């Protein structure tokens, strides 16, 4: 694998590493809020993968320029999918946080171990 190949795939390597950092927090951390932090890293990693796919060499943001001929534009479709996903992401994240707040009020703890012991 050449160096240029490596540079061309660096985004995807970062995607894989971020995805797994988030996944590690979800499975190995006992704190519920920490699990949600991990989940949002996981989600951001997926966003990064999609947005990396939209890039075209020599392209620019897909906002058409009238007087410029032969301008290359990046792919608008992954951008639309991720744009809406970001807003949905914050809404679902806060739903998770709301459930954690209620768990804390009921059990006085947000550590998985203590919650399992309390039940």
């Amino acid at each position, binding site marked *: 694998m050449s160096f240029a190949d490596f540079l061309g795939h660096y*985004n995807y390597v970062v995607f894989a590493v971020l995805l797994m950092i988030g996944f590690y927090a979800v499975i190995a951390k006992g704190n519920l809020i920490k699990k949600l932090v991990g989940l949002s890293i996981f989600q951001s990693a997926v966003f990064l993968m999609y*947005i990396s796919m939209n890039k075209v060499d020599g392209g620019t943001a897909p906002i058409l320029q009238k007087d410029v001929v032969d301008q290359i534009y990046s792919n*608008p479709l992954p951008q*639309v999918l991720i*744009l809406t996903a970001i807003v949905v992401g914050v809404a679902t994240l806060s739903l998770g946080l709301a459930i954690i707040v209620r768990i804390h009020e009921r059990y006085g703890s947000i550590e998985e171990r203590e919650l399992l012991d309390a039940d």
Partner: protein
Amino acid sequence: MTIIFSLFLLSLLVVTALAMVRTTNLFVAAMLMSIFSLLMAANFFILDAADVALTEAAVGAGVTTVIFLSALRLTSQHERGPLASGRWIARIVVAVTALLLIYGTLDKPRLGDPNAPVHLHVAPYYLENTDKLMGFPNVVTAVLSSFRGYDTLGEVFVVFIAAVGVMFILDARQGTGPEYEMPEVGLKHHLIPRAVGGLLIPFMLLFGLYVQFHGEYGPGGGFQAGAIVATAFILYALLEGEKTALKAFSRNAQTALIVGGSSLYGAVGVVCMLKGGTFLDYSVLLEDPVAGRQVGIIIIELGVGMAVCGALLSIFHSFAARKPVVQNR
């Protein structure tokens, strides 16, 4: 030059994510999350996704951090150490999966390859026909609101349901009694935040309106505008305290905004059907199909902006108006 910059930013993302997972102070994790989002927004911008960068900066770095902090206020700030057992198993699983994922991505076309399959399917159609069919230059807005208008309607409903869910879970109805008493102080006694905030809020609102109504011509649209306007109101609530903020913009008004916004979107679809077209086919709205599409898109973008703004505000107030329960164990 750009490539060095983007390698640097991507590496910073990994460092920030590692720090987020390692720290045991959840307040630090929330602050790092904000930094992570800002770095992510910069990365999106380098990758030509101006609209997404704007959304990530407004939602990820702004609103998410505030909601996270207000949830931390109601729980605890410190993590009491990870689960002792199974930590090494988790690390091995994660390392093996990471290697498999990296091996899998080697088959993907390299970054920026113009012949990648993703660029050959519907994207050229969108780029060629946006100007012809809609008569405005921002292809992202065109795909979001017209070509793939069904998707966006679904996403708005998801946001709507999530906001209603948070309100139900946190029992955010207005009532009397000690548990509904709202913290009144805010940052009233701090001169500098109040002075600076008071100067900022009008311009934030103005910028939000600009992003809303200029979304067809530049980066922006309902999602970004809703988040920016919500941020302005959240800043007001942080400065003046919950009570004053809710007097200015009541819970009922916020709920009306969510419901009104999402029904406005759906209603445009129904009107299109009544005028003889298919659901969300805006071309039948006016005599001239291009003008009809523009009118339809402006109205549904307004609906999206209203719904997102109302949802984010009501989620914030559900957390902020709740009193922390004092544990006596």
